[in-house]
């Protein structure tokens, strides 16, 4: 007879994603931030379907409705402008929903592109070392010694207006952050055994870099990307406010705020106020999420 000791079955090991989710959800402030971010994303994605009015359709706008305070009815008494109207009689709520679309699009695309370019450069610098590393990092140093707002301002003065040009300018401003962070992470990973093992299999360097090394360098890059998204959106709105950003036909939140600037002194506060609130909520949401991600992805805080 064999004595069989019945052990309770071990719980399955927690996957990294599960652990990340559990740790993330533990902080109420971060969850609140995530909720804000999701709300902003939903507003941006569904703007054309949920906004009460198409703010780009000039023909639909009635000039008698311009600068109405929040909660007014329109001249034809068919709809309520919950957040008021701007100087061109656009419903502000609709304009904000569409503006959020432009702001998040510009921010998201530019950060994604900067992340891709920056990590590729950083990995290459760490992998090849020598003069390639020295040259690339010198360029990064010089780039980072310039304030982003000045670089973007000069670039846009040269490139002209347009959503694509703003994205290009933001990518040029941001890639260096990712390059520096990716290089730092890659230098650490490079010394580890799995890379040596992969080298023994005589895998080619592209595969080594992008399939083996990159996934292990991602956590710090994701944190930077999140916080950088907030920077990118703020920077875009600032540039649009200065009049060198997106064109009038695709107003972002920054441009809406700029449009309200001239009416502010005559007491029509809502034209600048509400787009700013929307912008601030989106940025606060992103920062809260990024802050907490940094805390839980930081290896120093790992349990």
């Amino acid at each position, binding site marked *: 007879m064999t004595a069989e000791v019945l052990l309770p079955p071990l719980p399955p090991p927690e996957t990294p994603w599960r652990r990340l989710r559990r740790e993330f959800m533990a902080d109420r*402030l971060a969850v609140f931030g995530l909720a804000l971010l999701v709300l902003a994303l939903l507003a941006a994605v569904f703007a054309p379907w949920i906004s009460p009015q198409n703010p780009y359709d000039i023909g639909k706008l009635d000039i008698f409705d311009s600068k109405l305070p929040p909660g007014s009815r329109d001249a034809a008494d068919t709809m309520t402008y919950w957040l008021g109207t701007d100087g061109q009689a656009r419903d502000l709520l609709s304009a904000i929903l569409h503006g959020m679309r432009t702001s998040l699009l510009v921010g998201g695309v530019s950060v994604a592109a900067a992340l891709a370019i920056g990590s590729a450069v950083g990995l290459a610098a760490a992998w090849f070392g020598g003069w390639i590393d020295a040259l690339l990092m010198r360029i990064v140093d*010089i780039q980072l*010694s*310039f*304030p982003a*707002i*000045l670089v973007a*301002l*000069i670039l846009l*003065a*040269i490139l*002209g207006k347009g959503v694509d040009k703003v994205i290009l300018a933001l990518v040029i401003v941001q890639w260096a952050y990712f390059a520096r962070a990716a290089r730092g992470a890659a230098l650490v990973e490079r010394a580890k055994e799995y890379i040596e093992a992969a080298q023994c299999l005589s895998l080619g360097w592209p595969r080594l870099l992008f399939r083996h090394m990159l996934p292990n360098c991602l956590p710090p890059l994701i944190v930077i990307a999140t916080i950088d998204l*907030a920077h990118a959106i*703020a920077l875009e*709105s*600032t540039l649009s*406010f*200065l009049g*060198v950003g997106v064109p009038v036909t695709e107003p972002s939140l*920054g441009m809406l*705020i700029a449009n*309200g*600037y001239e009416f*502010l*002194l005559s*007491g029509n*506060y809502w034209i*600048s*106020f509400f787009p*700013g609130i929307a*912008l*601030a909520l989106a*940025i*606060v949401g992103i*920062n*809260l999420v990024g*802050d907490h991600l940094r805390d839980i992805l930081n290896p120093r805080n790992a349990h």
Partner: protein
Amino acid sequence: MSAFIIRRLLQAVLVMTVMSGLVFIGLYVVGDPVSMMASAEATEQDRAEIRASFGLDKPLWQQYGIFMSHALRLDFGKSFLTGQSAMGLILERMPATLELALVSMGLAVLVGIPLGIWAGLRPQAYSTRGIMAGSVLGFSLPNFWVGLMLIMVFAVQFGWLPASGRGATGHIGALDLSVLTLDGWSHLLLPAVTIALAKAALIIRVTRAATREALPMDYIKFARAKGLRWSRILRVHLLKNIMVPIVTVGGLEFGQVVAFAVVTETIFAWPGMGKLLLDSIITLDRPVVVAYLILIVFFLVMLNLVVDVLYSVLDPRVRLQGAKA
């Protein structure tokens, strides 16, 4: 030490040269400054004369060569718009910008360091959560929008403070300063608070992190074991040791504030060099734009240098890189 400084300066010269070349070409491609200078009814001959008088009829590489050879003698050309020396125009506006930046950073430090230390000493307190939430707001809110809202509340609604301009200035030698008059302060307050809100938020975070790192250290424990008063431990032992990160961030942020003056000065119509840059970009006033950029690179490199040197003063353990090399 001197090798370190010389290397930094050489690097600055390299950056200035490369950047001025890029901007020179970029602005050359964008448009013809003559269209901005000549009146609408100017004939083709008038235009050609203007062009020749500024040397704009020469090929680009020659224009750049002439510019650089003059730049070596610290002559950065004349503004296309006013005919004044470009660098003179900027230097004339610089005190206003530096004054605004210094007052803002001063406010930010005065508010940020005590709040940051408080938050570091009591990580779990409700007051700390309030401070930290406030600091997230501080650097999340778009700065230009904060400025607009301050104007809305304090200038439009209550009418307490003026919304634009610099107000009366007092003189110290050749310098005109707003801080010397009451009217100047009333003009200075809104833009300075706008900038200070964002910068204080950063300083709070840095101070808090540094405080939390320093508290478990032996020298703090030892000071307490000796029976020193808390106030003395904080003022002498803690403050000295958390200064290095605060000076780093503060110094670099000071550079950011000066660069960001483009935005703040536009909102508050503050007559500094940031507003001058934006106006010059719009009017394609190339000499002023290039001169501004050269000056700001020089300024940023100097600022970095000062911060690095301050390190070794504040913390004798820090050796400057290149001091040995």
